[in-house]
Structure formats: C-alpha cells, structure tokens
C-alpha cells in the first residue's frame, strides 16, 4: 500500500480530539466509573460471603437474569460487580461505534471530508484517525476502571481483566462501525446498522446463556460480548478470549480499509434507492417534515423500551424473591422508599433508570433544532411562510410525545411481563405503567434546559449532554459517595414519587412541569428574537 494514504492522520486526530473535547472525556469517565459504584454497593448490600452465595444462587436459578446480565462466575464482591457491569460492555461498544461513525461517515455526508480530502490528507487518514482516537479512549476506559477497582481493594488481576474486557468490546464495535461507515452513504443508516449488530450480538449471548443446559451455549461464542464475559474477571480469569476479540478487531479493521480503498469519497458500497418524484399529499407542514426526520428515533426507542420492559418485567418476580433473602437489604429499601412490596421498589428504581435513558432521547429531539440550524436546512424553511415557533413546534412535539411513548411502551411491556409471572395482570399492569409515566416531568426538565440553551446560547447547546451525565452520576453514585442532600436534589430524577407502591406527591411533579414550561418558554422566546446562527 502507498504510504501517502495515511498522511495527515496526525492532524485529524488533533482535530477530532478538539471537536470532542467535551463529550469524549465525559463518556470515558462515566463508563469507567460505573462499575466502581456497583462494586461498592454490592459490598454494602451483601457484606458476608454467605449472603453473596445465596444471592448468586437466586441469580443462577433465574433464566431472565442470565438473559439480561449473563452468567455469574463467582460469589466474591469482584465477580458480582463484574456480572452487574456486563451491560457496561454494551455501553462502551455503543459509545465507541457512534464516535467512529461521527468522525467518518457523518463528516463525509456533510461534505467536510471532501474539503479535507483535497488537502494533504491521505485516503485512509479519516478512518485511521477515528479508529486511533476511539481505540485510545477505550483503552483509557479500561485502564481507568482497572485502576479504580484496584483502588477500592479488589484483586489486581481481576480488575485488569474487567477493564480490558470493556476496552476490547469497544475496539470490536469501533472496528465494526468502521466497516458500516464504508457501506452506506448515510450516517443514519450506518448508525442503525451498528446498533442492530449490537442488538444481535446481545441477543446471541442472551439466548446462548439461557439455553446453555439445552445445548445452545455455542451461540454465546458467536458474540463478542459473550467472549468478554467469558474472561471471568475475579473468578479464575481466562485471558485467551482476548485473542478472539483482537482477531475480530483485525479482521473488521482490514475489511474497513479494503472497502475504503474501493470506494469514492461520499459514495457507499450499498447503492442508494431512488425516492418518490413527488411528495405525498400530507407532506405539507413542518410537523410532517419533523415526522419524517424523527420517526426512526421514535420507533427505535419505543421498540427498544418495549423489549427492555419485557426483560425487566420478566425478571421482577425472581428479583424480588432474591432481594427478600437479604434482610439487611429489606431494611435499606424500606428506609429509602417506605414501599410495601419489594417488586414495587424494584420497578420504581428501574423506571427511574429508564427515565434517565429516555432523557437522552428528549435532548436529542430538542437538539435536532440546532442541527437543522447549523446544517443550513432551517434557512430555506424559514424563508417560506413558516414562522419560527411553528418550525420549532414540529420537532418539539417529538421531544414531548416521544419520551412519553417510549416510557409507555416500557411500562406496558414490564407490567404485562410482571403481571403474567405474578398471575395478576389486571392489578400489576396499570401500577407499573403509572410508575413509568410518573417519570415524565423529570424527563422534561433536561429537555427544557436543552431548549433554553438552544434559544439563548445556541453555540453551547451541546452542554445539555454534560448536564445529563451529571444527573446520571448524581443518581447512580451520589448517595454512595455520600454527597449532601442539596447536591442530590439538583437532579430532577431525585424528586419523582416512588411508584408503584409509594405515595403520590403532586407538588414536586407540578413544580417540575412548571419549571420545564418556564425553561421552554424562555428558550423559545430567545429563539424568536435571535439571529439564525449556522
């Protein structure tokens, strides 16, 4: 290969790091620290070896647990933390893949790659720089996590194994995203291809782990996520699965480079399909356009939450039974929520986590306004007889209704699955659904802040993501770190009544709705007054 095709990768790495100077450190640190929190909370909830062994027993006897988190390989605090962290593999993989696509296909679609391609930058420089940045970020996640775990007193070998398994999962999906970015002309298509692949890999592992006794265990070995769990951190670590992961990284990276060499800049390998020559009769409003642009996200989030709801609802009964074995835990849970049933507490907690996740969707739907503005697509619309507010309203409807639809899908599925296993759908379904929907006021607060930034400080609109990360950290780790109450109260998710089971207290819900409305009104009024700033 000609050496010139790599030229300029160094400058591109600096460019990508500069562009990502906020978001990259955020995801590296958050993903590296989450397992630390799991470790300390497990040590606190199950202080004795005996309690942990009993907990492992309930996990092992529950197929839904195996489906969701995978198998548990030991009863030490470390092994349980590693088991509980298994979803983190998915998060690291997702963050890695999306970052690679953002710096390859998204840039190319926007024509920025063409501009760079004409300078002294080689054909493969963009792909190379994106992969180097993400591989390094993954390694940073792994090493930071390992150092942190060792710092909390866990064995060094297991900590290193857990950290590196996270990094390797990130590498595999970064390389896979490198391939997807070559295949399609649209960044959106490349993203959905990668997310679908990730979902498939998760499903293979889940089915393989559940069906292990039935001879389905080999399916796990088709899944890179499965390989990384088979490293067995803190339970007689096995290092050879890393060879599988590195092999996959090598094959995928080589494929990405071969595809990249064969195609033109801007083109994909998969040819685009032609569209209709004329618009349908209903395609005549900003709302209709917003529907075309945002419906994919709505379907994806609703379907994803329905699947997640089924899994969460399915494990609820055995999770509650498992929790009942730990008297100390019951005490803690009673103190926290004052709830009657353990399953209720479980749903209140999981729905709170779903609400945090769906806030990302709400922020994304709001910030679509900013994307349309910076990409210059707002300008031709606002030059027609569409007012500023009408234009914004189309997208904002999705920020309002989208999270509601996703939470409703999650709540319905969870209520149905739990109702079926508990034998009382008529009672449980509305209770769990209410637990999901009561979260909405908290979801609207970050969306309102994103809209405020868009209207008043549009160049800083991306800070919305840092705010969400702060809420996530406050919720997940704040109490464990012993932060004062006023700090915990900064997060809107702290103020949600604990449903099902708890008392509904309307004032905080009302206050959050009023706050969101005020934030939105201030943002929209700023947007009406300000210049368009591409």
């Amino acid at each position, binding site marked *: 290969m000609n050496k010139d095709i790599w030229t300029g990768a160094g400058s591109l790495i600096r460019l990508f790091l500069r562009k990502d100077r906020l978001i990259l450190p955020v995801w590296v640190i958050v993903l590296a620290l989450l397992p630390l929190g799991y470790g300390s909370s497990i040590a606190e909830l199950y202080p004795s070896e005996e309690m942990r062994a009993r907990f492992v027993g309930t996990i092992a006897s529950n197929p839904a647990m195996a489906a969701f988190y995978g198998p548990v390989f030991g009863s030490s605090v470390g092994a349980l933390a590693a088991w509980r962290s298994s979803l983190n593999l998915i998060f690291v993989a997702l963050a890695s893949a999306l970052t690679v696509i953002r710096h390859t296909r998204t840039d190319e*679609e926007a024509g920025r790659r063409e501009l760079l391609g004409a300078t002294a930058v080689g054909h493969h420089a963009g792909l190379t720089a994106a992969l180097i940045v993400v591989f390094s970020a993954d390694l940073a996640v792994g090493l930071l996590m390992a150092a942190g775990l060792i710092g909390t007193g866990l064995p060094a070998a297991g900590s290193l194994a857990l950290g590196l398994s996270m990094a390797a999962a990130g590498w595999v999906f970064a390389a896979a995203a490198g391939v997807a970015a070559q295949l399609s*002309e*649209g960044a*959106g298509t490349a993203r959905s291809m990668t997310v679908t692949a990730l979902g498939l890999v998760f499903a293979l592992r889940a089915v393989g782990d559940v069906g292990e006794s039935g001879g389905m265990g080999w399916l796990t070995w088709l899944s890179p996520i499965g390989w990384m769990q088979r490293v067995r951190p803190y339970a007689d670590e096995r290092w050879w699965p890393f060879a599988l992961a590195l092999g996959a990284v090598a094959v995928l990276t080589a494929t990405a480079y071969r595809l990249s060499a064969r195609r033109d800049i801007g083109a994909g390998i998969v040819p*685009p*399909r*032609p*569209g*209709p*020559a*004329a*618009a349908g009769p209903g*395609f*005549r*409003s*900003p709302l*209709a*356009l917003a529907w*075309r*642009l945002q419906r994919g996200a709505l379907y994806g989030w609703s379907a994803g939450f329905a699947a997640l709801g089924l899994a969460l609802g399915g494990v609820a009964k055995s999770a509650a039974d498992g929790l009942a074995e730990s008297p100390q835990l019951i005490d803690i849970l009673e103190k926290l929520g004052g709830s009657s049933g353990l399953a209720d507490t479980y749903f209140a907690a999981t729905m709170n986590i779903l609400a945090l996740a769906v806030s990302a969707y709400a922020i994304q739907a709001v910030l679509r306004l900013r994307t349309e503005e910076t*990409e*210059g*697509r707002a*300008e*031709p*619309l*606002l*030059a*027609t*007889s*569409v*007012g500023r507010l009408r234009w914004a309203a189309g997208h904002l409807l999705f920020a309002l209704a989208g999270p509601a639809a996703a939470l409703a899908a999650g709540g319905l599925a969870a209520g149905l699955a739990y109702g079926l296993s508990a034998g009382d759908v008529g009672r449980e379904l509305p209770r769990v659904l209410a637990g999901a929907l009561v979260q909405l006021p908290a979801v609207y607060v970050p969306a309102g802040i994103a809209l405020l930034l868009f209207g008043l400080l549009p160049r800083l609109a991306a800070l919305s993501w840092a705010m969400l990360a702060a809420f996530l950290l406050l919720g997940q780790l704040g109490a464990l770190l012993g932060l004062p109450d006023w700090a915990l109260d900064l997060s809107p998710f702290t103020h949600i009544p604990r449903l099902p089971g708890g008392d509904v207290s309307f004032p905080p819900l009302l206050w959050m709705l009023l706050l969101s409305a005020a934030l939105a009104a201030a943002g929209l009024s700023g947007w009406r*007054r*300000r*210049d*368009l700033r591409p």
Partner: protein
Amino acid sequence: MPAIELNKLTKYYGKHLALNQVDLRVEQGEVYGFIGPNGAGKSTTIRILLGLLRKDGGQARVLGGDPWRDAVTLHRRLAYVPGDVSLWPNLSGGEVIDLLGRLRGGMNPKRRAEYLERFALDPTKKCRTYSKGNRQKVALVAAFASDAELFILDEPTSGLDPLMEAVFQQCVREVKAEGKTVLLSSHILAEVEALCDRVSIIRQGRIVETGTFAELRHLTRTSISVETALPVAGLSELPGVHDPVVEDGGTRARFAVDAGELVRVVRFLAPFGVRSLVSAPPTLEELFMRHYGEGIEAGGERR
C-alpha cells in the same frame, strides 16, 4: 412602492461591522444586481431581508412590510434561493420541491414539471446523492415554480454548468416579463450585466457604486490582447482606450477599452492585419483592484 428599500442598514456580528449604512432601492418589476466579492455582506443583507437576521440600525422594507415582524406573511409573496443549498439527505428532490412550494403557499404543478424538464433534474434521487449544482437546481425549481412576486436569489448559479446557467438566465427574463421583481446577488459581473437593469456594488459592508450599466460604463471595460502583422501606431490616442501596453515593436498590444468604444477600436485595428484577438470582460476582482483597491483597508471595521 419599491419592492425592497434599505436605508442606512447596519449589522454587527459581535464587534465586527458586517453592514455599514447600506442603502438599496429595488423597484417593482426590475431585475436588480447585487454584486461584490465573497464576504462583502451580500448574504447578510439578504438574510436581513428574509427576517433570518435582525438589523442593528437603519430601516428595511420588503414589499411594503417589515422583514422581521411580518416575515411569515411576506414570505408567501417571495421566493428565495440560498447560495449554499443544504437539503435533507433522505428526502428525494421532488419531495423537497413540493414541501418548499407548499410551505410557501402553493405552487403551479405545470410549471413544476416544466422547470424540472428545463433544468434536467431527476426528482427521484435522494438529496444526499445530489451534487452542489443539483441541490441548487432543486431550490431553483422550487422558486421558479412558485407564484412569488419577488425573487431573492443569492449567488444562484455558483454550482451550475454554462448550459444550465443559460437556462437560468432565460428563467429570470421570463419572470421579469411577467412583471416580477428579482434581486440577484452575484460575484460574476457578466451574469449581472446580462440580466440586470440596475446594480449596486457592495464591498466590506458598504455600497460603493449604484446605478444602471450605462451609468457604470466606466466599470465595464473589456480587456483586449491583440497580435498584428504590422506595428500598431496611434492606439493610445483613441478615445476609450486605457492602459495600453505595446510590445514586440508594436505587433503585440494589451489594453482595456470602454464597452461603447469597442466597435471603433476593432475598425481601427483591422488595417494592421489582425492575427489574433482575445477579448475578456473585466473580472470583478480587477474592477475592485482598479477602482477601490486604495482607500479601503483590508478586513472589517471595528466597533
């Protein structure tokens, strides 16, 4: 009532003075040229006319209304083609044309089909596959197929090939014949000269020249480079000839000539046995270098 009237329009970007007391008056039914180099303030002026930017000083009227306050009602009566057209990658060109037309308040389906044909645009292609020129055509078809009374075109031909540029010029002449008003911003003098009744030249946020082309005759000199069999004598005495440079003992000459004097100069040259003659319209950059090169410092002014 003029279609567009700007009076001492001023705009700052932070501390940078982007528009400095811009005056502009476009009468109904005329094609008005708005020319200047990149970054001179053409697009800023147009965005204020469209209510996309706020003015910091002066007055602006479009079709008798306030471009910021009355944006929605005014936009029903005007069509806009941006210089850099960005479209939604997963929509087809035909969908975008229909959407923009409908949001403006309706379009004529016959004209839509006609303009698609004339601009040779395939409306079934997804916007992500369009070249810059084709994206520009989408915006042009959407604009010309509308029933707007005012067309605001911001460097609309920057991605078009010469054939399509000719189609574009024909379209502008047709809407003019229907009595509609066109504001055409450009940095190509020949295009503006071919279409416009009057022009304003903007440079560094300031209008430096306004008038008909006859009034701006001194701006429209043609550069001539000629090679003759016999040495040319007496060239510099001819009226309308500027900056002559004679080489090779008089058989090679370069000079600029006022547009109205071109016939006389060609007749004068013929007896010397013309071997080759190259004429070029002046580029805008040359004009600026010649007329405004001194006295206007580079870079914007500071508040």
